[in-house]
């Protein structure tokens, strides 16, 4: 279980997270929605210790992330796959090497690494791209390689940072299917940060809206769709203020 407990973070005096509290249960996919700059990605980065909190903490299976020492943080990161907004693939490595990088770090046998890389690329429908470089791939393919890199680690949790941003509607739908398939086949707990409502409705078990640094409303897809909160309604209907 991942718990955001009264998380606070400010940049240059501006509070981005101001008492953000949320629980993500094992096996569910939680979607965090919110306006651009609301702090969704910032919250996600706290889960893997990429940012230190100013106050509060993120608790992953009983471990307070900000209190972990380097080996503790390394062990935690080994359980979490992180899919970055723009994939963050390493330009100088092939697709295969990108997907294998985390496995090499774990010193798995070469045969095991090769099998896991092939399985991961097959799961994201990119089995023939192993020898290509990121620069030779489209934006959607790069994002799918990013997912393959995360799932090759066989993590307990997967964090998706804006997985459909910048993609055309068809490719976005493919990404949504992929996230659902990953959850079904691997049984991982997921947190998806997005402002794409179609994607949120497709992949989410529950949806939380982040507004002014804290959770405005959290509930099932149906509850959010039927919300009477004016801010939530404005966001999900995409109405200007």
């Amino acid at each position, binding site marked *: 279980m991942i718990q955001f407990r009264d998380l606070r973070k400010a940049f240059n005096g501006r509070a981005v997270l101001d008492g953000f509290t949320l629980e993500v249960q094992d096996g569910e996919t939680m979607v965090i929605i919110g306006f651009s700059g609301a702090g969704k990605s910032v919250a996600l*980065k706290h889960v*893997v*210790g*990429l940012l230190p909190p100013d106050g509060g903490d993120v608790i992953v299976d009983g471990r307070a992330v900000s209190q972990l020492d*380097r080996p503790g943080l*390394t062990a935690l*990161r*080994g359980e*979490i*796959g*992180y899919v*970055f*907004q*723009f994939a*963050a*693939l*390493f*330009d100088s490595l092939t697709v295969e090497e990108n997907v294998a*990088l*985390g496995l090499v*770090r*774990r010193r798995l046998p070469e045969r095991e690494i090769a099998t896991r890389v092939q399985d991961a690329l097959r799961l994201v429908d990119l089995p023939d791209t192993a020898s290509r470089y990121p620069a030779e791939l489209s934006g959607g393919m790069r994002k799918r390689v990013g997912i393959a*890199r995360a799932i090759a*680690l066989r993590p307990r949790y997967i964090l998706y940072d804006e997985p459909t941003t910048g993609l055309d509607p068809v490719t976005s739908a493919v990404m949504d299917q992929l996230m659902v398939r990953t959850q079904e086949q691997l049984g991982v707990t997921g947190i998806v940060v997005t402002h794409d409502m179609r994607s949120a409705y497709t992949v989410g078990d529950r949806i939380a809206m982040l507004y002014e640094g804290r959770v405005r409303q959290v509930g099932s897809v149906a509850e959010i769709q039927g919300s009477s909160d004016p801010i939530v309604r404005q966001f999900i209907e995409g109405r200007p203020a």
Partner: protein
Amino acid sequence: MIDRIGRYALDRVRAAGRLGHFLADLVRAVPDVATWRGPLVVQMRKIGVDSLPVALFIAAFTGVVLALQASYTFTGTVPLYIVGTVVAKSMMLELGPVLTGLALSGRVGASVAAELGTMKVTEQVDALETLAYDPMAYLVVPRVLAGTVMVPLVVALGIVVGIITGWLTSLSLIHLSTPEFVKGLKLLYQFKDTWFGLAKSASFGLTITLVGCLLGLSTWGGAEGVGRSTTRAVVISAMLILMLDAFWAVVLL
């Protein structure tokens, strides 16, 4: 005014703190040999082998000019075999290390800062962390070690090439014989000339790569930020090379 001075002082203190942190993290990452061993070979090629053309080009023409200028200065006053002394001493003690160092501050310093800066702004450094790699061990240690080891080797080859072109120039344009050139070469030579130049070059290599890594990993603000870090890396490492050059001259000569 007081406010501005205070803010400047605070910025300097913060920068010193960041540098201290960076160096402490670097030292802590050194024992993680399994992580940096692989990238080290790649960086030795990139920083050392790939820098040879520019370094040898500079050294070759420096040797020619040194021989010609020495002959111009000494003709009629000092025995011409001293040309060999001037070429060797200048190449070993000063021009070999410093000109190569300045050239590499542009080639290597810019490349390191731009590469790491791009990795930083495109979240590749964050991605490394999430894959349980220590970016200091994977990115910084191999570059700094490669710079410290390979720059002296590049300089050593540059010194040899500079002396050879100085000798060829002396033979063909100054009409000095080979025994005369070698006589000048040996005159006043001390072993210290060799290790001084190479030790100085190692400090230049360390400086160029450290500055490039530090500024690259501090990059923020997209493509403009990468450009800013790259320019600063070149300027700062070039200035530090000249300061280190004077420092070693004071301390060791």
